[in-house]
Structure formats: structure tokens, C-alpha cells
């Protein structure tokens, strides 16, 4: 049956329901587009025959191929759109710099889209708070205190805090740091929030 390749693309995304981004399936996408081209050409031939030779009996087949074209179109659109939703989520989960193994799974256009999203989010955040700017990716939970106790889960090198002091984030070391400086590193699994 037609449209088997395009449903494979959809299954591929559906299997990773937690929002992970699988590698961009360029090959699969090309195969779907090739099938669509073939369907379109066959329909062109049949439409011409139907018109020139009055072959109305070809109409059901034309319609079937047309349905398949639309189906492929829907699957591809949904595939690309769902990937964009995942890529947008990465900005909130990882921050503005993505690790190479995640970036590696995007196609060039997606990398560009991520860049644009990052920029519009940044300029929106700059415009908030009467020109002061406001980081809306911070404080996803209501803060209880300005400083929190954190433990390093892995070596992360030097880290500068508000007052200019530089501290060394070494594995298993424990620190008392401003909450807003740590939130992203906690999300990334570099630091662990220690509750008293």
C-alpha cells in the first residue's frame, strides 16, 4: 500500500513520547517525497487520458492516488511540526546552548529555526520589566529562599557568582549559592539541590 514510509516517520516520533528528538530522517523524508512525485505523475497521465479519451472509469483511481498524496502531505507536515515542538522544548530544558549530541540530530533548517526561536525569546525577555529585562525561564517553581545548598554531580570547572567570586565546581563538593545562578545547572543535572 502507499504511504507506508510516511507512517514510519510518525511511528519513529511517537515511540519517543517523552519529547526526545530522534535523528532527522532525511532518507525517509526523501522516499516519501519520491512516492508523492510518482503519484502525482501517474495522476497527471490518468487525468489527461480521462479528459482526452473521456475515460471516466479512471476517476476512482485518480481519487485514490489523490488521497494518498494528501495523506503523505499530512504525515510530513505533522512530522516536521512535532519536531519543532520538541526543539522548542529543548530551549526550556537545556537552556540556549545545546549539547552536541542533541544538535547533531537536527537538520540545518531546524538549527536555524532554533536560533531564531532563541533570539525571539531573548528579545521578548529583554522587553519585559520596564526595560530591565526578565528571565522567564527562571523560577519555574516559587522560590523559598534566595540562596540554596547544592552538591556537584560532576566536574564543571570554574563558576562566577554575582559578586565576582569564582568558585570551583568539583564533583561531590557542596556549595551555598544564589538560587537563580544554579537553576539551569540543576536542570542540566550538573548540580543537585540539597534540601535541609
Amino acid at each position: 500500500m502507499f504511504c507506508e514510509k510516511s507512517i514510519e516517520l510518525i511511528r519513529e516520533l511517537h515511540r519517543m513520547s517523552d519529547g526526545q528528538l530522534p535523528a532527522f530522517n532525511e532518507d525517509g523524508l526523501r522516499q516519501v517525497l519520491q512516492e508523492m512525485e510518482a503519484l502525482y505523475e501517474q495522476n497527471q497521465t490518468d487525468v489527461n487520458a480521462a479528459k482526452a479519451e473521456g475515460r471516466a472509469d479512471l476517476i476512482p483511481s485518480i481519487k485514490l492516488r489523490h488521497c494518498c498524496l494528501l495523506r503523505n502531505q499530512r504525515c510530513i507536515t505533522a512530522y516536521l511540526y512535532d519536531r519543532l515542538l520538541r526543539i522548542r522544548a529543548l530551549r526550556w530544558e537545556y537552556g540556549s546552548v545545546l549539547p552536541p549530541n542533541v544538535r547533531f540530530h537536527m537538520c540545518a533548517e531546524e538549527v536555524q529555526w532554533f536560533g531564531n526561536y532563541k533570539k525571539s525569546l531573548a528579545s521578548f525577555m529583554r522587553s519585559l520589566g520596564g526595560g530591565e529585562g526578565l528571565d522567564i525561564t527562571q523560577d519555574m517553581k516559587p522560590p523559598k529562599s534566595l540562596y540554596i545548598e547544592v552538591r556537584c554531580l560532576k566536574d564543571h570547572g570554574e563558576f562566577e557568582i554575582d559578586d565576582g567570586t569564582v568558585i570551583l565546581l568539583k564533583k561531590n563538593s557542596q556549595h551555598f549559592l544564589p538560587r537563580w545562578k544554579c537553576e539551569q545547572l540543576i536542570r542540566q543535572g550538573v548540580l543537585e539541590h540539597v534540601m535541609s
Partner: protein
Amino acid sequence: MDPSEVEFLAEKEIVKIIPNFSLDKIYLIGGDLGPFNPGLQVDVPVWLALNLKQRQKCRIVPPEWMDVDKLEEMRDLERREDAFTPVPSPYYMELTKLLLNYASDNIPKADEIRTLVKDIWDTRIAKLRLSADSFISQMEAHAKLDNLTLMEINTIRSFLLDSLNCMYKLRSNLQPGSSKGQLTDY
């Protein structure tokens, strides 16, 4: 909503504290606080009370309802009645948790209070499930949520809304013609 956000809202409730320091009135966006005088009761929001308490700057006066006799009465009434009975505070659950965690030494019979409040909560949640079920099975279109608190609604909100949405869709199936003739999805 995340429960921590509900708790955040609860921290705006007012409690009485007895400070052990002096400080002039302070002026904040959310309203003026103080003045503070040692030994004199003063009203403050819960977030400030907990902060002062943690720094041993005050004693917290438990709210009137946080009392074993009163809570026992409420528990019994809640068990007797079919409907939800009025609660002493729209944030009774959150305040109980916050005050007992940070200031249990200021609250007489803290453990008993914890158990009683939990009993009341459990009874109410069981009622909430019961009424959600009869709401669905009788296909009601609206329901009164009198006397329910934010935290209670919050535990079941997304589940109930999703279920009602499904039921609405399945009910619209019964009226053919509403979306018939649109075979546009491939």
C-alpha cells in the same frame, strides 16, 4: 498547577506572631507590616512568619481552628454530611503542613492535629471522587464546587477536565449532522 504554587498562594495568608525584637513599620508593595515590639502580637503573612521563626525571631500563634477539639468536631461533621462542609481556612491543608513543619513547638498537640487534618482531607477527597463519578454517570453539565479548596480541586483538575472533554466529544457523536459531511482528514 503545581502544589508548590498553591502553597505559595497560601503563604500570603495572615497569622499572628509574637516577635522578640523591635522594628519600625516596614512598607512593602504588598502592604505595610509591623511595627514589631517584643511580646506584642502582630499580624504578618505566613511567609514572613516562617522566615522570622526559622531565625528564632518570633513565636507563631496557631490559628484558632488549629485545635484538637475543634478539628475533631469538624472531622465528625465531615464524615456525617454528604456534602462538603465549610473548612476553617481556604488553605487549611497547606497551613497545617507549613506551620507544623516549621513551628511545631508553638502548636500544642501537633501530632494529633496532623492526623486530624489528614483525616478530614481523606474524607473530603473520597467525597470528591464520589461526586466526580456521579457527575459523569448522570452526564451533568455543571456542578457546584462550594466549600472545596484550591488544593483539593488541584489534585483532580487535569484528570476531571480531560475526562469531561472526552465525554463531551463522545456525547456530540450522538447528534449526527454536527460535523457530518466533512470527510476532509486524510
